[in-house]
């Protein structure tokens, strides 16, 4: 499916069909958008809220659903001081409407034809656009070797954990590797530190395999991982990054 972008991106209304809690801090909003033209995995939408006095706040949220999915899904991380995310995660209910525009962005996007192998690196809710890529890959029956390295603060904060476990169990060409940076459950045998150059050297595909890397998360993580991959010999043009500020929301 090719995402057709209107010449001027228009704001339009989406209706909340369902709100799905993912972790204590994140929820997925399942949306009905009339005549949605489709999107590419990795793209985002802008969401706009208008207060009664006319004040408007606008933020970007990655699309979590695959282009093949019936409904558009956004997964929103609740930021304590955020202007927009607490409303989306705490107040919004089924049947409510919100304004959005999109899909937006062609840089941080992956389609089956782009090939691989894929090396996906996420910090926190940076996993959302990468999950859209994994879901797209599954939906079209692609066998592109895919490795997701995902950093979370704790086990409870891993978004889409069960879906990732199920997928990795039935599809040998998908691997999911977690690292937990703050707390870990008893008996945790996985990584328990921030993603560093040593971890990337162990887990990234060899540059000889001409991999595509997508890195999404807080700015410090994205910059450290991007620089380390280039140091390991990866082509900078094949390392795509998407950063969000810690004060977003």
């Amino acid at each position, binding site marked *: 499916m090719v995402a057709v*972008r209107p*010449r*001027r*991106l228009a704001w339009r209304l989406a209706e909340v069909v369902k709100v799905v809690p993912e972790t204590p801090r994140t929820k997925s909003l399942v949306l009905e958008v009339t005549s949605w033209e489709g999107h590419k995995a990795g793209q*985002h*939408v*802008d969401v706009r809220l208008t207060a009664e006095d006319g004040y408007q*706040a*606008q933020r*970007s949220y990655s699309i979590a659903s695959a282009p093949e999915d019936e409904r558009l899904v956004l997964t929103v991380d609740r930021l304590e001081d955020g202007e927009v995310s607490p409303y989306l995660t705490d107040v919004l209910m089924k049947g409510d409407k919100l304004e959005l*525009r*999109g899909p*937006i*962005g*062609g*840089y*941080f996007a992956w389609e089956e034809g782009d090939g691989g192998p894929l090396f996906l690196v996420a910090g926190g809710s940076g996993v959302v656009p990468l999950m859209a890529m994994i879901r797209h890959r599954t939906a079209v029956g692609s066998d592109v070797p895919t490795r997701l390295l995902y950093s979370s603060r704790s086990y409870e904060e891993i978004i889409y954990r069960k879906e990732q476990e199920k997928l990795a169990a039935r599809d040998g060409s998908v691997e999911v590797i977690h690292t937990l940076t703050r707390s870990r459950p008893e008996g945790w045998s996985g990584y328990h530190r921030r993603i560093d150059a040593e971890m990337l050297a162990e887990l990234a595909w060899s540059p000889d395999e001409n991999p595509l890397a997508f890195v999404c998360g807080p*700015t410090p993580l994205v910059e450290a991982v991007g620089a380390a991959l280039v140091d390991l010999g990866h082509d900078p043009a094949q390392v*795509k*990054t*998407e*950063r*969000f*500020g810690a*004060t*977003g929301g």
Partner: protein
Amino acid sequence: MDELRLDGNAAAGTLGEVFSFEVTTAEYACERCGRTDRLGGAMVYEVRELGTIVRCPSCDNALIRLAHNRGRYLVDLRGTRYLTTG
């Protein structure tokens, strides 16, 4: 001032209000340091009420300044040598 440090991807919707081409895959050349890259990889400092500034990740030069006031846009491109559509 509450600043939001993001990248060119997050500003794509706002930049799309003035540019009719896909901005994240467009290539820029920085007027100051000569770096060329996709705009999607550039840094954006979003100063919320005043507008959006897109900066070069190598030298911090302001590539694009976009201000929005009373339904009008002001676009300052003096930090960009050229833009090529993707």
